[in-house]
């Protein structure tokens, strides 16, 4: 055990957990990493490429090494950073990316072949023989690559999403963030304070600083307490703001239950879209390391992380309490690690500082002007080699803290592609001026690294931000705090022949960067892509600046001249589950149910997805063993008797106003203004590019009132286009439109007995052919007073009507019609029978109106009026459209037992099967119970002149060829006598 005194862990409670099958104990307040360190466990994982043994490197979300598979079964979560995994009782974790046990990873042999795996090596080989890539090389590489494993089971937990609004979003709850939130909170502003940690305080929790001569952790706790008491402040710990989007929208993930064994009734995580009038970026800074030979052994970590483990988690970073610890620092801040560890009773070997004039800040051995240029220890650090004044010596060492300076966390400030700017006094990039508007960097994120400067800048940023939105905030009286100047050397790496790691996870070394330079992969984006530097799970947080410095040195440029890669969301990894939220599985999209849905369910209907709608596909009856049997029965019932079908899904638009007729004239290719009141007309719409768009009916209910229908698929778009025409093209017309698709239930009553059925429900209305002929419409009442609209239109080709009633009466109407027509054999039919009936009549539907066809192709060329302009009329006359000779035809199999298959292509008999000889394709097909064979519709070159010709329908995809005869698309009642009867 290497547990120290003090710290912010609750020793009164013991939590047990397992790592790689072995049980350990920790305390509330621990992370998995701190608890493992406290148990003397240094080896936690393996690197990506060379499978080098790795231990914890950081104390935060930037961790590149200590990645584990957390939990088991369907909850298994790969690549989980042990450094931010809050310990809970019963936690189970396993190390990942190794073959065999962690301490004897068979894939570690990769390390012996490392010279062969230099940057970009795979671009230069594995090319011969060609077929070996997919069969051998790639599977081998893929198997060795990757990090953790998915369970391949569906995530069992629940997730949610929500919106939040505030005046000021404070990102980060360290010194700067707390000061900003307190300033704004006291001013009465609506504040959200979000921090990725489970406890507010940021670096204050990790340092031994005092504020007003009291421990800084106490100040943080009291501010947190005051903020919690303010009703206008929302504190969100365990919440990462991962991205900045346009106009003050921030994406954040709250880990609601990740600190529990299972979420129980709670969601595991929530996605918040936070709309903030202003925001303060107080995300702190990330320490950087200094590459030197063999700098990747377990036990070598960031000096600041080492302080955090000692101060906050009361943990020495060594395997044994007696092992001495060293610090390698190019700056004063790093020396504090030695001081803090000594204060905790940890033996300190000394501080190695390459600055010849490095100060000694306490009672430790100082190796000024010295460097570390070698380490030992296969599975954990055992010794370091210090070179000073040209003399090298090995020293026993159990852990090493490396302090290479701090990089402000500028990520969010750069999400709008504004580049950070180099600040030479800090030797770091700070947020540039081109950041997201309304985002104010503060504290260490803005390069204000001392506690005093962070507090001050947090307060000032909040005041400035709030002033812009008219909220005056008074200055806080800030506590006295350390204000140490930043003193550091531009010392970026220790030169040497052995490998010095820059990017730990992806195993990118200084040598790889030198090779990239040699091969002219010098632009920073090339460097990144050639070496995979910065492409690991930390997105270069621990590697990029060091790498830039090395490349700058090689190219004899400055670091800012060398540039930075682009910062992209998310700031840290975000689970795909929470980004999907609850809108997955059966809830992926809402279901739209028709007014008769529940009635249809009771009838045992089978439903089918039609866009967002669920429609009854067919209504099987007991004894029917195959869907075709049902559909044949339903289709025959319509042609012989009467059938009912819910057609509510068709779009309906109410068009009213003195200019309604003129308006519709401009929208439909055919004349609508001349339609008589009480009449319906079939209408065709074109897109402005001249192609066929949508079809439907226009009914004129009164002089200034039309009701039009659209196809189900285009209900939304057509209405949108109508509003576009009304508001953007012709606002001078006196016309109003409103979508009424959901307001009216509409039921098709089709078949020779449909009139007889309707006569039983209409209230005193003459339905005789003379009084209410084909294409008549009327408003009326049915069922003793229910408001209804009746249209005598037919999709089936039979005598038919569509009756509309207010949607809430749809189900009752359906039930009433079923009851009233029982003796007529009334039969509900679904979309399958509807399809059979329309194919038998040659009516176009989605497969024919697919947006690629023209009015002429559909046989509707004459509907494009030459007497008036309408949308698309001009462009429909272009050569390419006018010259298109493909026409809609009917197709029947020569062998009546054969099947017509939609999607087959049409060829002249004896012609080669090629694109050049392709003459068309089959759009729709069905078995016609009336013709006793399969029939189809299709587009065929010169179709209208080829009636009677025998073609071949080729379906090489399924190895089929079928001989078909070209016939009229109107298979049934081609003269249209039945519907006028």
């Amino acid at each position: 055990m290497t547990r120290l005194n003090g710290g912010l862990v609750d020793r009164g409670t013991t939590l047990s957990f397992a790592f790689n099958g072995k049980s350990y104990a920790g305390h509330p307040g621990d992370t998995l990493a701190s608890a493992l360190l406290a148990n003397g466990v240094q080896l936690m994982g393996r690197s990506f490429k060379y499978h080098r043994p790795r231990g914890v490197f950081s104390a935060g979300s930037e961790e590149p090494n200590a990645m584990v598979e957390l939990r088991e079964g369907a909850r298994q979560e790969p690549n989980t950073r042990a450094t931010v995994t809050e310990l809970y009782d019963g936690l189970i974790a396993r190390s990942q990316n190794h073959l065999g046990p962690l301490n004897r990873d068979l894939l570690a042999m990769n390390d012996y072949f490392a010279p062969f795996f230099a940057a970009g090596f795979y671009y230069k080989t594995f090319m011969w023989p060609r077929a070996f890539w997919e069969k051998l090389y790639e599977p081998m590489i893929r198997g060795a690559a990757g990090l953790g494993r998915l369970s391949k089971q569906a995530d069992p937990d629940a997730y949610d999403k929500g919106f939040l609004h505030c005046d000021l979003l404070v990102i980060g709850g360290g010194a700067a963030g707390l000061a900003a939130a307190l300033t704004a909170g006291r001013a009465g502003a609506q504040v959200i304070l979000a921090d990725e940690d489970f406890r507010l305080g940021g670096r204050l929790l990790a340092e031994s600083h005092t504020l007003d001569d009291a421990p800084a952790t106490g100040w943080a706790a009291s501010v947190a307490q005051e903020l919690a008491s303010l009703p206008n402040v929302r504190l969100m710990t365990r919440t990462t703001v991962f991205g900045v989007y346009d106009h003050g929208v921030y994406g954040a993930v709250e880990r609601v239950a990740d600190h529990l064994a299972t979420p129980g009734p709670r969601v595991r995580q929530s996605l918040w879209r936070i709309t903030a009038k202003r925001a303060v970026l107080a995300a702190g800074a990330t320490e950087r390391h200094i590459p030197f030979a063999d700098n990747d052994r377990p036990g070598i970590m960031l000096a600041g992380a080492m302080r955090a483990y000692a101060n906050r988690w009361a943990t020495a970073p060594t395997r044994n309490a007696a092992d001495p610890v060293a610090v390698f620092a190019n700056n004063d801040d790093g020396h504090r690690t030695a001081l803090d560890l000594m204060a905790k009773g940890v033996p300190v070997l000394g501080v190695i500082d390459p600055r010849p004039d490095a100060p000694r800040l306490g009672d430790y051995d100082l190796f000024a002007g010295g460097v570390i240029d070698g380490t030992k220890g296969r599975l954990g650090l055992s010794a370091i080699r210090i070179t000073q004044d040209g003399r090298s010596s090995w020293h026993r060492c159990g852990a090493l803290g490396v302090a290479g300076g701090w990089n402000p966390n500028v990520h969010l400030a750069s999400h709008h592609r504004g580049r950070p700017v180099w600040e030479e006094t800090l030797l770091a990039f700070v947020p540039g001026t081109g950041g997201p508007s309304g985002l104010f960097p503060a504290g260490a994120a803005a390069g204000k690294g001392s506690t005093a400067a962070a507090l001050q800048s947090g307060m000032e940023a909040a005041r400035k931000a709030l002033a812009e939105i008219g909220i005056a905030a008074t200055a806080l009286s800030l506590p006295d705090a350390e204000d140490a100047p930043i003193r550091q050397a531009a010392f970026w790496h220790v030169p040497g022949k052995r490998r010095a790691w820059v990017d730990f996870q992806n195993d990118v070394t200084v040598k790889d960067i030198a090779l990239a330079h040699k091969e002219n992969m010098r632009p920073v984006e090339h460097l990144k892509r050639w070496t995979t530097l910065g492409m690991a799970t930390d997105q270069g947080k621990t590697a990029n600046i060091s790498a830039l410095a090395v490349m700058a040195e090689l190219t004899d440029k400055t670091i800012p001249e060398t540039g930075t890669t682009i910062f992209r969301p998310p700031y840290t990894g975000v689970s795909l589950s929470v980004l999907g939220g609850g809108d997955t599985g059966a809830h992926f999209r809402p279901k739209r149910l028709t007014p008769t849905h529940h009635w249809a369910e009771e009838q045992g209907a089978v439903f089918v997805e039609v866009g967002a709608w669920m429609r009854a596909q067919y209504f099987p009856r007991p004894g029917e063993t195959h869907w075709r049997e049902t559909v044949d029965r339903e289709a025959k019932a319509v042609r012989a008797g009467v059938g009912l079908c819910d057609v509510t899904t068709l779009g309906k638009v109410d068009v009213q106003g003195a200019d309604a007729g003129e308006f519709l004239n401009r929208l439909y290719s055919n004349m609508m203004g001349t339609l008589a009141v009480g009449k319906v007309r079939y209408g065709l719409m074109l897109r402005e590019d001249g192609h066929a768009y949508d079809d439907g009916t226009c009914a004129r209910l009164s002089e200034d009132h039309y009701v039009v229908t659209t196809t189900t698929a285009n209900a939304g778009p057509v209405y949108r286009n109508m509003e576009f025409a009304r508001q953007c093209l012709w606002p001078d017309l006196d016309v109003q439109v409103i979508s009424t698709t959901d307001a009216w239930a509409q039921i098709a009553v089709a078949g020779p007995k449909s009139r007889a059925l309707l006569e039983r429900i209409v209230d005193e209305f003459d339905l005789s052919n003379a009084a209410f002929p084909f294409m008549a419409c009327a408003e009326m009442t049915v069922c003793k007073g229910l408001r209804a609209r009746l249209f005598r239109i037919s999709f089936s080709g039979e005598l038919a009507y569509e009756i509309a009633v207010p949607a809430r009466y749809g189900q009752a109407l359906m039930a009433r019609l079923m009851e009233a027509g029982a003796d007529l054999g009334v039969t509900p039919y679904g979309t399958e029978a509807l399809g059979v009936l329309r194919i038998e009549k040659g009516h176009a539907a989605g497969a024919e109106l697919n947006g690629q066809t023209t009015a002429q192709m559909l046989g509707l060329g004459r509907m494009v009026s030459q007497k008036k302009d309408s949308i698309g009329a001009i462009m429909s006359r272009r050569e390419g459209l006018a010259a298109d000779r493909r026409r809609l035809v009917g197709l029947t199999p020569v062998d009546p037992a054969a099947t017509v298959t939609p999607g087959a292509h049409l060829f002249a008999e004896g012609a080669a099967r090629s694109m050049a000889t392709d003459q068309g394709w089959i759009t729709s097909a069905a078995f016609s119970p009336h013709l006793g064979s399969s029939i189809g519709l299709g587009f065929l070159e010169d179709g209208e002149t080829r009636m009677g010709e025998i073609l071949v329908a080729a379906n090489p995809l399924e190895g089929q060829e079928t001989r078909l005869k070209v016939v009229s698309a109107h298979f049934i009642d081609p003269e249209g006598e039945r519907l006028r009867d």
Partner: protein
Amino acid sequence: MRFSGFRVVKEALTGHKGWGMLWRNPDPKPAYDIVIVGGGGHGLATAFYLAKTFKQARVAVLEKGWLGSGNIGRNTTIIRSNYLLPGNEPFYEFSMKLWENLEQETNFNSMVSQRGIINLYHTDGQRDAYRRRGNAMLLAGADARLLGQDEVREIAPFLNFDNARFPIKGGLMQPRAGTARHDGVAWGYARGADMRGVDIIQNCEVTGFRIEGGKVQGVETSRGYIGAGKVGVAVAGNSSRVMAMAGMRLPIESHVLQAFVSEGLKPTIPGVITFGAGHFYVSQSDKGGLVFGGDIDGYNSYAQRGNLPVVEDVIEGGMALMPMIGRARLLRSWGGIMDMSMDGSPIIDRTEIDGLYFNGGWCYGGFKATPASGYAFAHLLATDRPHETAEAYRFDRFARGYVIDEKGVGAQPNLH
């Protein structure tokens, strides 16, 4: 220097001392026979084929940033030739054949991996449309298979077959489709072009065209004037901006497409899978990341970044389709600017200005087209005749009514 396994071993044993620069950093010459504007995938491929196939000796590629920084630097790496329309399918199949020999041709491993693509269908109507498409592919000499639900389940048992809002009924598969390592493609072409004498000039932004008497004379650049016999523009994403300098308006809008990659995972997803009831496509990289995308954001943009609603929409689709990916984390998202054309298909054509040629309008499908686009553009630049597979990609198809509209949505770029 020829790359090979032998060479890699030799260098490993001799301290990597022998590697040279992958390409030179030449200064611009005063004039070239052919200047390609844009050092992205299409521009580099054009230069490669100009030098290799069409034996053009004096060729330069001008790139305003670093080579390969176009959309070839950020995409979802899918290659396929599963188109429907006669104007498209032969071209993309030509591209697929070039992909199949790319590495041997460039002596650079671009990791062309033919692991197959499956486009899932969820309705009978979709199945029929895919059958039509699959047959069109076979008729054009490509490969295709129509899979039933059981066959899809066998290949991808992790898909949501149990409680899907839109049940998976099957899929159209192209076994020869797959992915390629996008940067590797750019670098392979760049190195191959450079070896054959093409000057690839990075950090050289074209700021104007010098046009006299209706003929292009050369280009003004951030590194001075460069004369040119012919200028080929291949700057998809920025086409309108660049061609405006020559006084042209294009049938193109610039839109942002976001793409996504997860943290590295052990092998999980076999090939490329696309969702037919939402917009989501995914594959897994050799490094282990799930690489996926969906719809464009839908508004004109040059910002190279997108917004949260589309992030959510894409990942909702992914989670609905394959709920087992939920415990993986999104590592990075990015946005690229697409030339969204008015019919969803590209343009490779001469312009009204003599000597000025245009290649663009790739929507978000340009990556797979890279080899054929480069070859066809090189053919056009070298011979002044369109390549036989790219004859339909003309400017005047809009005026004349010969659009190539695979989706059938008309002149609405954000729906293509």
